Protein backbone atom coordinates (compact mmCIF):
# COMPACT_ATOMS: atom_id res chain seq x y z
CA UNK A 1 0.00 0.00 0.00
CA UNK A 2 2.16 2.82 -1.21
CA UNK A 3 -0.63 5.28 -1.95
CA UNK A 4 -1.76 5.88 1.56
CA UNK A 5 1.45 4.77 3.21
CA UNK A 6 2.56 8.20 4.18
CA UNK A 7 -0.85 9.00 5.59
CA UNK A 8 -1.03 5.83 7.54
CA UNK A 9 2.25 6.58 9.23
CA UNK A 10 0.70 9.76 10.57
CA UNK A 11 -2.50 8.17 11.78
CA UNK A 12 -2.28 9.58 15.24
CA UNK A 13 -1.55 13.06 14.01
CA UNK A 14 -4.42 12.99 11.54
CA UNK A 15 -7.04 11.91 14.01
CA UNK A 16 -5.83 13.47 17.23
CA UNK A 17 -8.10 16.29 18.42
CA UNK A 18 -8.04 18.84 21.18
CA UNK A 19 -7.86 18.39 24.15
CA UNK A 20 -6.46 14.90 23.66
CA UNK A 21 -3.38 16.22 21.84
CA UNK A 22 -2.15 18.02 24.96
CA UNK A 23 -2.21 15.17 27.43
CA UNK A 24 1.54 14.97 27.42
CA UNK A 25 1.42 11.41 26.12
CA UNK A 26 3.25 10.00 23.13
CA UNK A 27 1.25 10.41 19.91
CA UNK A 28 0.06 6.84 19.52
CA UNK A 29 -0.81 6.44 23.18
CA UNK A 30 -2.75 9.69 23.19
CA UNK A 31 -4.55 8.50 20.09
CA UNK A 32 -5.46 5.13 21.62
CA UNK A 33 -6.72 7.07 24.61
CA UNK A 34 -8.79 9.40 22.47
CA UNK A 35 -10.22 6.44 20.61
CA UNK A 36 -11.24 4.77 23.86
CA UNK A 37 -12.82 8.04 24.96
CA UNK A 38 -14.83 8.28 21.75
CA UNK A 39 -16.05 4.69 22.08
CA UNK A 40 -17.01 5.30 25.68
CA UNK A 41 -18.81 8.51 24.70
CA UNK A 42 -20.95 6.82 22.07
CA UNK A 43 -21.75 3.99 24.47
CA UNK A 44 -23.01 6.48 27.05
CA UNK A 45 -25.14 7.97 24.31
CA UNK A 46 -26.40 4.49 23.44
CA UNK A 47 -27.28 3.90 27.10
CA UNK A 48 -29.24 7.13 26.90
CA UNK A 49 -30.97 5.97 23.73
CA UNK A 50 -31.82 2.68 25.45
CA UNK A 51 -33.88 4.70 27.90
CA UNK A 52 -35.46 6.68 25.05
CA UNK A 53 -36.66 3.57 23.26
CA UNK A 54 -37.20 1.86 26.59
CA UNK A 55 -39.90 4.39 27.39
CA UNK A 56 -41.47 3.66 24.03
CA UNK A 57 -41.39 -0.07 24.71
CA UNK A 58 -42.85 0.52 28.14
CA UNK A 59 -45.74 2.36 26.52
CA UNK A 60 -46.30 -0.67 24.29
CA UNK A 61 -46.04 -3.11 27.19
CA UNK A 62 -48.55 -1.22 29.31
CA UNK A 63 -51.00 -0.76 26.44
CA UNK A 64 -50.71 -4.38 25.40
CA UNK A 65 -51.31 -5.56 28.96
CA UNK A 66 -54.42 -3.40 29.14
CA UNK A 67 -55.80 -4.31 25.71
CA UNK A 68 -54.28 -7.70 24.88
CA UNK A 69 -57.07 -8.97 22.65
CA UNK A 70 -57.36 -5.86 20.51
CA UNK A 71 -53.61 -5.69 20.11
CA UNK A 72 -53.56 -9.23 18.75
CA UNK A 73 -56.28 -8.35 16.27
CA UNK A 74 -54.46 -5.22 15.18
CA UNK A 75 -51.03 -6.84 14.90
CA UNK A 76 -52.49 -9.36 12.48
CA UNK A 77 -53.08 -6.50 10.04
CA UNK A 78 -49.43 -5.53 9.61
CA UNK A 79 -47.65 -6.98 6.61
CA UNK A 80 -45.41 -9.73 7.89
CA UNK A 81 -43.66 -10.20 4.56
CA UNK A 82 -42.35 -6.66 4.51
CA UNK A 83 -41.61 -6.81 8.19
CA UNK A 84 -39.55 -9.97 7.95
CA UNK A 85 -37.79 -8.82 4.81
CA UNK A 86 -36.84 -5.59 6.52
CA UNK A 87 -35.56 -7.43 9.57
CA UNK A 88 -33.36 -9.58 7.33
CA UNK A 89 -32.11 -6.48 5.46
CA UNK A 90 -31.23 -4.72 8.66
CA UNK A 91 -29.51 -7.76 10.17
CA UNK A 92 -27.40 -8.02 7.04
CA UNK A 93 -26.55 -4.34 7.17
CA UNK A 94 -25.51 -4.85 10.78
CA UNK A 95 -23.07 -7.51 9.58
CA UNK A 96 -21.61 -5.14 6.97
CA UNK A 97 -21.29 -2.39 9.55
CA UNK A 98 -19.45 -4.66 11.96
CA UNK A 99 -17.09 -5.84 9.22
CA UNK A 100 -16.43 -2.25 8.15
CA UNK A 101 -15.66 -1.26 11.71
CA UNK A 102 -13.20 -4.09 12.21
CA UNK A 103 -11.62 -3.70 8.79
CA UNK A 104 -10.97 -0.02 9.36
CA UNK A 105 -8.72 -0.88 12.26
CA UNK A 106 -6.38 -2.99 10.14
CA UNK A 107 -3.75 -1.95 7.73
CA UNK A 108 -4.50 -2.55 4.09
CA UNK A 109 -8.19 -3.16 4.38
CA UNK A 110 -9.41 0.26 3.27
CA UNK A 111 -11.06 -1.17 0.18
CA UNK A 112 -13.00 -3.70 2.26
CA UNK A 113 -13.98 -0.96 4.71
CA UNK A 114 -15.27 1.21 1.90
CA UNK A 115 -17.21 -1.62 0.26
CA UNK A 116 -18.82 -2.63 3.52
CA UNK A 117 -19.78 0.94 4.30
CA UNK A 118 -21.33 1.17 0.84
CA UNK A 119 -23.24 -2.07 1.38
CA UNK A 120 -24.43 -0.82 4.77
CA UNK A 121 -25.83 2.34 3.21
CA UNK A 122 -27.48 0.42 0.37
CA UNK A 123 -29.12 -2.05 2.73
CA UNK A 124 -30.27 0.83 4.90
CA UNK A 125 -31.78 2.53 1.89
CA UNK A 126 -33.40 -0.74 0.83
CA UNK A 127 -34.96 -0.95 4.28
CA UNK A 128 -36.34 2.56 3.90
CA UNK A 129 -37.71 1.72 0.45
CA UNK A 130 -39.49 -1.38 1.71
CA UNK A 131 -40.80 0.62 4.63
CA UNK A 132 -42.13 3.22 2.20
CA UNK A 133 -43.94 0.58 0.17
CA UNK A 134 -45.33 -0.87 3.38
CA UNK A 135 -46.49 2.55 4.55
CA UNK A 136 -48.32 3.07 1.25
CA UNK A 137 -50.06 -0.26 1.62
CA UNK A 138 -50.98 0.55 5.22
CA UNK A 139 -52.52 3.82 4.16
CA UNK A 140 -54.45 2.12 1.38
CA UNK A 141 -55.74 -0.41 3.91
CA UNK A 142 -56.92 2.51 6.11
CA UNK A 143 -54.63 1.60 8.96
CA UNK A 144 -53.91 5.22 9.80
CA UNK A 145 -55.73 6.00 13.06
CA UNK A 146 -58.58 8.38 12.51
CA UNK A 147 -62.15 8.54 11.33
CA UNK A 148 -61.79 6.09 8.44
CA UNK A 149 -59.78 3.50 10.37
CA UNK A 150 -60.32 -0.02 9.05
CA UNK A 151 -60.78 -2.00 12.27
CA UNK A 152 -63.82 -1.62 14.47
CA UNK A 153 -62.34 -2.54 17.87
CA UNK A 154 -61.59 0.82 19.48
CA UNK A 155 -58.18 0.13 20.96
CA UNK A 156 -56.76 -1.34 17.75
CA UNK A 157 -56.15 2.32 16.96
CA UNK A 158 -53.80 2.45 19.95
CA UNK A 159 -51.74 -0.31 18.38
CA UNK A 160 -51.51 1.53 15.11
CA UNK A 161 -50.75 4.77 16.89
CA UNK A 162 -47.76 2.95 18.34
CA UNK A 163 -46.94 1.32 14.99
CA UNK A 164 -46.69 4.60 13.11
CA UNK A 165 -44.85 6.32 15.91
CA UNK A 166 -42.32 3.57 16.59
CA UNK A 167 -41.56 2.89 12.93
CA UNK A 168 -41.13 6.56 12.13
CA UNK A 169 -38.89 7.22 15.13
CA UNK A 170 -36.84 4.21 14.09
CA UNK A 171 -36.75 5.48 10.50
CA UNK A 172 -35.46 8.85 11.69
CA UNK A 173 -32.70 7.10 13.62
CA UNK A 174 -31.86 4.98 10.60
CA UNK A 175 -31.72 8.07 8.38
CA UNK A 176 -29.26 9.65 10.78
CA UNK A 177 -27.22 6.44 10.59
CA UNK A 178 -27.28 6.53 6.78
CA UNK A 179 -26.20 10.16 6.82
CA UNK A 180 -23.30 9.33 9.14
CA UNK A 181 -22.08 6.52 6.89
CA UNK A 182 -22.48 8.58 3.72
CA UNK A 183 -20.42 11.30 5.38
CA UNK A 184 -17.67 8.79 6.11
CA UNK A 185 -17.63 7.60 2.51
CA UNK A 186 -17.52 11.18 1.30
CA UNK A 187 -14.63 11.94 3.64
CA UNK A 188 -12.69 8.95 2.35
CA UNK A 189 -13.33 10.09 -1.20
CA UNK A 190 -12.07 13.60 -0.40
CA UNK A 191 -9.10 12.38 1.57
CA UNK A 192 -8.10 8.79 0.74
CA UNK A 193 -6.92 6.89 3.77
CA UNK A 194 -9.19 8.81 6.10
CA UNK A 195 -11.09 5.74 7.20
CA UNK A 196 -8.03 3.89 8.39
CA UNK A 197 -8.06 3.88 12.19
CA UNK A 198 -10.57 6.71 12.29
CA UNK A 199 -12.55 6.56 15.54
CA UNK A 200 -15.47 7.95 13.58
CA UNK A 201 -15.98 4.63 11.79
CA UNK A 202 -16.37 2.76 15.03
CA UNK A 203 -18.65 5.42 16.48
CA UNK A 204 -20.92 5.41 13.44
CA UNK A 205 -20.99 1.62 13.32
CA UNK A 206 -21.84 1.30 17.01
CA UNK A 207 -24.74 3.66 16.42
CA UNK A 208 -25.80 1.55 13.45
CA UNK A 209 -25.68 -1.59 15.56
CA UNK A 210 -27.90 0.06 18.13
CA UNK A 211 -30.49 1.07 15.54
CA UNK A 212 -30.36 -2.53 14.40
CA UNK A 213 -31.08 -3.79 17.91
CA UNK A 214 -34.10 -1.51 18.21
CA UNK A 215 -35.62 -3.01 15.11
CA UNK A 216 -34.93 -6.51 16.40
CA UNK A 217 -37.13 -5.71 19.40
CA UNK A 218 -39.75 -3.86 17.38
CA UNK A 219 -40.20 -6.77 15.00
CA UNK A 220 -42.01 -9.14 17.40
CA UNK A 221 -43.97 -6.21 18.82
CA UNK A 222 -45.35 -5.05 15.51
CA UNK A 223 -45.48 -8.16 13.36
CA UNK A 224 -45.59 -11.35 15.37
CA UNK A 225 -48.43 -10.78 17.86
CA UNK A 226 -51.70 -12.51 17.15
CA UNK A 227 -50.42 -14.73 14.34
CA UNK A 228 -50.99 -18.03 16.11
CA UNK A 229 -54.22 -19.96 15.71
Amino acid at each position, binding site marked *: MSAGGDLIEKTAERHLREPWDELGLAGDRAFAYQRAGAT*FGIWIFIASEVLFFGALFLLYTAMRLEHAADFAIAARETNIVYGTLNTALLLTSGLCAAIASQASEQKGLQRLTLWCLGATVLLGLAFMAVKGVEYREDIEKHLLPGASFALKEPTTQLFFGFYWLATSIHAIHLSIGIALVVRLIWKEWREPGFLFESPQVEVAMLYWGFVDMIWIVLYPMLY*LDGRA*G
Partner: protein
Amino acid sequence: MSERSRTSIGRIWRRGLIVWVLLLAFLALSLFAAYAAPASWAAPINFGIAATQAALVALLLMRLDRADALVRLAAACGLFWLAILFALTLTDTLSRLANS
Protein backbone atom coordinates in the same frame (compact mmCIF):
# COMPACT_ATOMS: atom_id res chain seq x y z
CA MET B 1 -2.44 -7.50 -0.68
CA SER B 2 -0.25 -9.04 1.93
CA GLU B 3 -0.66 -12.47 3.44
CA ARG B 4 -1.35 -11.02 6.84
CA SER B 5 -4.22 -8.86 5.75
CA ARG B 6 -5.71 -11.76 3.82
CA THR B 7 -5.83 -13.95 6.93
CA SER B 8 -7.29 -11.13 8.97
CA ILE B 9 -9.94 -10.60 6.28
CA GLY B 10 -10.78 -14.27 6.58
CA ARG B 11 -11.05 -14.04 10.34
CA ILE B 12 -13.27 -10.98 10.26
CA TRP B 13 -15.59 -12.48 7.68
CA ARG B 14 -15.77 -15.90 9.27
CA ARG B 15 -16.72 -14.51 12.62
CA GLY B 16 -19.23 -12.04 11.16
CA LEU B 17 -20.87 -14.57 8.90
CA ILE B 18 -21.40 -17.02 11.75
CA VAL B 19 -23.19 -14.35 13.74
CA TRP B 20 -25.19 -13.33 10.70
CA VAL B 21 -26.33 -16.90 10.00
CA LEU B 22 -27.31 -17.28 13.66
CA LEU B 23 -29.31 -14.06 13.53
CA LEU B 24 -31.19 -15.09 10.41
CA ALA B 25 -31.83 -18.54 11.87
CA PHE B 26 -33.32 -16.93 14.94
CA LEU B 27 -35.43 -14.71 12.69
CA ALA B 28 -36.80 -17.78 10.92
CA LEU B 29 -37.39 -19.48 14.25
CA SER B 30 -39.38 -16.59 15.64
CA LEU B 31 -41.43 -16.36 12.46
CA PHE B 32 -42.19 -20.05 12.79
CA ALA B 33 -42.99 -19.73 16.49
CA ALA B 34 -45.37 -16.85 15.84
CA TYR B 35 -47.57 -19.09 13.73
CA ALA B 36 -47.01 -22.49 15.24
CA ALA B 37 -46.68 -21.95 18.97
CA PRO B 38 -49.79 -21.72 21.14
CA ALA B 39 -50.94 -18.10 21.53
CA SER B 40 -49.92 -17.81 25.17
CA TRP B 41 -46.41 -19.10 24.41
CA ALA B 42 -45.78 -17.11 21.26
CA ALA B 43 -45.09 -13.80 22.96
CA PRO B 44 -42.53 -15.07 25.50
CA ILE B 45 -40.77 -17.11 22.82
CA ASN B 46 -40.66 -14.23 20.38
CA PHE B 47 -39.44 -11.69 22.87
CA GLY B 48 -36.92 -14.21 24.19
CA ILE B 49 -35.59 -14.68 20.69
CA ALA B 50 -35.48 -10.91 20.15
CA ALA B 51 -33.51 -10.50 23.35
CA THR B 52 -31.07 -13.20 22.24
CA GLN B 53 -30.64 -11.56 18.86
CA ALA B 54 -30.09 -8.18 20.44
CA ALA B 55 -27.53 -9.70 22.78
CA LEU B 56 -25.74 -11.30 19.82
CA VAL B 57 -25.58 -7.96 18.03
CA ALA B 58 -24.38 -6.13 21.13
CA LEU B 59 -21.76 -8.70 22.07
CA LEU B 60 -20.42 -9.91 18.74
CA LEU B 61 -21.19 -7.19 16.21
CA MET B 62 -20.85 -4.16 18.47
CA ARG B 63 -17.95 -5.97 20.15
CA LEU B 64 -19.01 -5.64 23.75
CA ASP B 65 -17.20 -8.95 24.25
CA ARG B 66 -13.81 -7.31 23.90
CA ALA B 67 -14.72 -3.81 25.10
CA ASP B 68 -13.28 -2.00 28.10
CA ALA B 69 -14.87 -2.68 31.45
CA LEU B 70 -15.97 0.95 31.42
CA VAL B 71 -17.88 0.53 28.17
CA ARG B 72 -19.58 -2.57 29.50
CA LEU B 73 -20.50 -0.64 32.60
CA ALA B 74 -22.13 2.04 30.43
CA ALA B 75 -24.16 -0.59 28.60
CA ALA B 76 -25.12 -2.26 31.86
CA CYS B 77 -26.24 1.09 33.29
CA GLY B 78 -28.60 1.55 30.35
CA LEU B 79 -30.17 -1.83 31.05
CA PHE B 80 -30.31 -1.31 34.81
CA TRP B 81 -32.13 2.00 34.53
CA LEU B 82 -34.44 0.47 31.94
CA ALA B 83 -35.25 -2.20 34.51
CA ILE B 84 -36.10 0.49 37.09
CA LEU B 85 -38.44 2.20 34.65
CA PHE B 86 -40.19 -1.02 33.74
CA ALA B 87 -40.36 -2.55 37.19
CA LEU B 88 -41.83 0.40 39.02
CA THR B 89 -44.24 1.47 36.30
CA LEU B 90 -45.52 -2.05 35.81
CA THR B 91 -45.92 -2.39 39.59
CA ASP B 92 -48.64 0.18 39.22
CA THR B 93 -50.08 -0.92 35.88
CA LEU B 94 -50.29 -4.59 36.80
CA SER B 95 -51.74 -4.03 40.25
CA ARG B 96 -54.33 -1.67 38.77
CA LEU B 97 -55.22 -4.29 36.17
CA ALA B 98 -55.45 -6.97 38.82
CA ASN B 99 -57.86 -4.85 40.85
CA SER B 100 -60.18 -3.85 38.03
